[in-house]
């Protein structure tokens, strides 16, 4: 096939990608995002399927049988866990503005720039061969299309890989570094990646359908022929040549890969628009994986059946099969599919790595070199963009060099699995850090270095040995001939599969050191704080928001700091929206509180990584860091203490209520007790007065037998009157005691008040006559009946009338009595024209033994219990009694009694 045609198609395809990315970015700028839906999210996640999937799966199936599927079953298992694990990673990353795996690790373990740098370097080492693999796949596919001898040998003179790498660098620079704040999504890039995922799926299906149905008579035909061939049949009946250990290893490695590969983190976490997209994507993504694997086995078997063993590299069956029957168009479709798989991976991986290198390797170092004076530079946004772009070029250049000098010798799948095994080393540090508060920085360091070291020893060095870089005797005899240390069989034990062997030993070292060192060391202040922020991201909102800063800073200074890294406009905008959220007016406030400082730090973290952001923020904030003791106090026990103190609060509140009630009851009792004592004293006193007078008059009568008869009668009449008063007093005391104790027997009926009042007037008429007091009664006809006890109300009315007589004016005594219907009951008014009651005494007339009339006559005129009893009776019957005394108008008593039937309306 013509080289120019191939190059033209490739460049044309990439131009389409540029156009889509541009469109996606424009839509994002216009606020009409194209990527904000779960389907695009799932498709972008399919960046997992690289050229390694596109070409390599077939190669692995041709060599090993069904076990290639395990690489896609792992991600399916993880998709089931998305709701638990990925959702948590999403929450954590959004809360802390995390931009990459390195940042995630650095942030979790106390914003350690050393740890972030380590992860960044490991990623670079691991991913470079992986990128080289993509370039190799592209150049090999070009070669085979051009009709060069089949196989993936080195020596591509035209160097397609270089052009492809250059174009991809251009793409990554244009669409991957538009924003400085990496938490802002690259929507154009995501749109392009989703498009690529569709292209590679469709292309692979087209080739699969073509091979299965055009070249063969359906899948049954292929399988029947394969079963008939003794050299191919075993592939169909075994779970892979590496046995169960190999199968499990592949599954576990791919599970780690889908979570921790930098590009997967980029599309799944950083580019995520909405957490809810996880639900639909969690089954769409496995479905995509299933579909793209559907024809792998048929194509692999078809290749084995079509070509003589060894004549065509099985990694390239996808291209070689259509070419074999002369269908250039299908081969071109396959080429575009492979190209899309390779470019998608390279673009996302490069952008992810560039962010990581910039934020977690370059910036921490540059900011620490004082000679450069970066800390003083006013605007660093240009520098940041420059570093990112430089990193993209560097990553692609490294990938190209790796491909150019080493890449020719090793099958596609092996390089990919090498990377997977290295990425799996992040699992203990990250998963442990997300679920175990006790994981410490030392543990993370030890685990990563130990695991990565053993990975290098058991997989990377052997790969070099097989490429001829190191003497092969390193593999066969061990280093310096020490057989126990052979990299594929440490301590003389080989698990039958180098990968399983490497995974086992690297994980022993990794998990062992991670757990062991975490248990042996103590976490620092920032680390504990971050541990809680990560582990408890779903709960303890309060605890996770505990202030990380104790000192304060000027808002201006913070804003300037942010502006240097994210640009003036964005910094101002971010500060204003944060101030609005918290209801603070930026112009009025000068000093930033801990929350504002924390916000600035997170804003910076998005641009320069967690570790550098902490250092830069610390340069502005005055005052100490939060000490370890404080953090422990805040966080470690926060969970328990918050819960405990809430319970305590509830209990003490209940106790307080109870004791307040008790106090009130006690006071009431004391008051009652005091009243009882007072009552007894008063009663005794009141009883003694008439008794004394009876006794003294009786003694006079007894001792002086010769008293004149008139005087004797007068004295006797005093004795009689005083005895009557004594009897009345005792009766009233008994009545009052009965009413107060609730033992009084009430006979409540409907009463005609007019008749009752008339009876009362008749009963007191003698009194009125004696005192020559006029009674003016107004008793309107047709009054409604009231609900009361007849005898008691009679007592009340008589009491009021006799009081009125007693206190009315001695010369022209007048008592007015009136009955009036009111809304709330029937009103009885008794009024005299006496001197009235002094205002200060008004409130006390209804109390026991209060007599205010004595001043005039100098002698008690009643028992002092009458009005008290009246009030008890009226109140018991549901009515009300009141007194008023306008100056110079006498006293006026008002009794209101409820109606016998339902109360009337307000009219």
């Amino acid at each position, binding site marked *: 096939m013509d080289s120019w045609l191939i190059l033209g198609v490739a460049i044309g395809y990439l131009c389409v990608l540029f156009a889509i990315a541009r469109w996606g970015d424009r839509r994002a700028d216009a606020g009409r995002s194209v990527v904000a839906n779960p389907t695009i999210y799932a498709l972008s996640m399919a960046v997992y399927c690289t050229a390694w999937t596109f070409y390599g799966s077939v190669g692995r199936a041709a060599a090993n049988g069904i076990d290639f599927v395990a690489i896609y079953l792992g991600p399916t298992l993880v998709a089931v866990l998305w709701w638990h694990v990925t959702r948590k990673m999403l929450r954590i990353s959004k809360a802390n503005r995390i931009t990459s795996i390195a940042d995630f690790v650095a942030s979790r373990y106390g914003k350690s720039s050393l740890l972030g740098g380590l992860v960044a370097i490991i990623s670079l080492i691991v991913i470079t061969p992986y990128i080289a693999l993509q370039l190799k796949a592209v150049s090999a596919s070009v070669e085979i299309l051009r009709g060069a001898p089949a196989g993936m040998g080195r020596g591509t003179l035209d160097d397609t890989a270089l052009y492809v790498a250059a174009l991809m660098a251009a793409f990554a620079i244009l669409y991957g570094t538009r924003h400085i704040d990496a938490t802002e999504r690259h929507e154009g890039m995501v749109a392009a990646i989703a498009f690529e995922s569709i292209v590679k799926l469709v292309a692979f299906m087209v080739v699969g359908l073509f091979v299965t149905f055009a070249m063969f008579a359906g899948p049954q035909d292929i399988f029947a022929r394969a079963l008939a061939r003794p050299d191919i049949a075993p592939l169909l009946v075994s779970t892979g040549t590496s046995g169960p250990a190999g199968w499990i290893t592949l599954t576990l490695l791919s599970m780690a890969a889908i979570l921790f590969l930098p590009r997967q983190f980029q599309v799944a976490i950083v580019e995520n628009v909405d957490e809810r997209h996880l639900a639909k994507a969690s*089954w769409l993504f496995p479905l995509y994986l299933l579909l793209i694997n559907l024809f792998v086995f048929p194509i692999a078997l078809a290749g084995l059946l079509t070509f003589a063993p060894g004549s065509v590299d099985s990694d390239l069956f996808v291209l070689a099969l259509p070419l074999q029957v002369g269908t250039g168009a299908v081969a071109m479709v396959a080429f575009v599919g492979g190209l899309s798989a390779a470019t998608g991976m390279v673009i996302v991986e490069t952008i992810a790595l560039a962010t990581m290198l910039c934020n977690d390797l370059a910036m921490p170092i540059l900011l620490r070199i004082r000679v450069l004076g970066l800390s003083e530079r006013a605007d660093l946004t240009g520098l940041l963009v420059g570093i990112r772009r430089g990193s993209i070029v560097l990553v692609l250049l490294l990938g190209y060099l790796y491909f150019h000098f080493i890449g020719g010798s090793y099958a596609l799948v092996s390089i990919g699995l090498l990377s997977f095994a290295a990425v799996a080393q992040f699992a203990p540090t990250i998963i442990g850090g997300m679920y175990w508060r006790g994981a410490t920085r030392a543990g993370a360091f030890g685990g990563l270095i130990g695991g990565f070291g053993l990975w290098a020893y058991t997989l990377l060095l052997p790969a070099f040995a097989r490429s001829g870089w190191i003497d092969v005797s390193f593999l066969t005899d061990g280093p310096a001939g020490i057989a126990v240390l052979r990299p594929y069989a440490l301590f003389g034990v080989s698990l039958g599969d180098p990968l399983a062997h490497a995974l086992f030993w690297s994980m022993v070292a990794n998990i062992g050191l991670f757990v062991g060192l975490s248990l042996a060391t103590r976490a620092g202040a920032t680390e504990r704080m971050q541990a809680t922020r990560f582990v408890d991201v779903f709960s303890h909102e309060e605890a996770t928001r505990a202030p990380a800063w104790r000192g304060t800073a000027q808002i201006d200074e913070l804003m300037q700091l942010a502006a240097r890294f994210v640009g003036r406009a964005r910094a101002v905008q971010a500060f204003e929206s944060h101030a609005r959220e918290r209801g603070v007016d930026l112009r009025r406030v000068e000093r930033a509180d801990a929350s504002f400082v924390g916000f600035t730090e997170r804003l910076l973290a998005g641009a320069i990584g967690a570790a550098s952001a902490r250092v830069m923020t610390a340069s502005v904030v005055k005052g100490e860091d939060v000490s370890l003791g404080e953090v422990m106090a805040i966080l470690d026990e926060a969970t328990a203490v918050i819960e405990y103190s809430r319970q305590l609060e509830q209990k003490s509140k209940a106790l307080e209520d109870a004791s307040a009630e008790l106090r009130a009851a006690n006071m009431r009792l004391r008051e009652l007790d005091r009243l009882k004592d007072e009552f007894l004293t008063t009663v005794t006193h009141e009883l003694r007065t008439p008794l004394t007078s009876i006794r003294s008059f009786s003694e006079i009568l007894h001792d002086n037998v010769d008293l004149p008869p008139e005087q004797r009668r007068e004295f006797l009449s005093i004795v009689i009157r005083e005895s009557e008063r004594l009897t009345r007093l005792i009766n009233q005391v008994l009545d009052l005691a009965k009413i107060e104790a609730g033992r009084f027997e009430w006979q409540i009926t409907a009463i005609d008040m007019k008749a009752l009042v008339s009876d009362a007037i008749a009963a007191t008429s003698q009194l009125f006559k004696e005192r020559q007091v006029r009674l003016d009664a107004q008793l309107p006809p047709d009054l409604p009946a009231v609900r009361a006890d007849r005898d008691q109300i009679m007592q009340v009315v008589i009491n009021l009338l006799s009081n009125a007589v007693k206190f009315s004016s001695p010369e022209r005594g007048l008592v007015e009595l009136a009955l009036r219907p009111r809304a709330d009951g029937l009103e009885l008014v008794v009024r005299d024209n006496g001197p009235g009651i002094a205002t200060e005494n008004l409130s006390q007339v209804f109390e026991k033994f209060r007599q205010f009339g004595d001043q005039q006559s100098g002698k008690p005129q009643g028992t002092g219990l009458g009005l008290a009893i009246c009030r008890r009776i009226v109140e018991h019957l549901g009515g009300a009694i009141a007194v008023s005394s306008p100056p110079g108008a006498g006293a006026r008593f008002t009794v209101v009694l409820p109606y016998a039937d339902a109360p009337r309306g307000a009219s």
Partner: protein
Amino acid sequence: MKDPRLGERLIGLLLLAALLFSPMLLALFARSSPVAGLPPLVVYVFAAWVVVIILLARIAHSGDRDR
């Protein structure tokens, strides 16, 4: 995602998927007598995969339907 038992259902599905894709169960189907002209192992792997995806979709959207 409003289903209150979503979390435990997903864990259950994970256990089921791990069982379905375990080497032990795969070994049961590693035989050469074809099923409808197709090798039983291949048919089993893809069938189990489809079952897991369908269950996953049902669980993931169970909350949506309730609403």
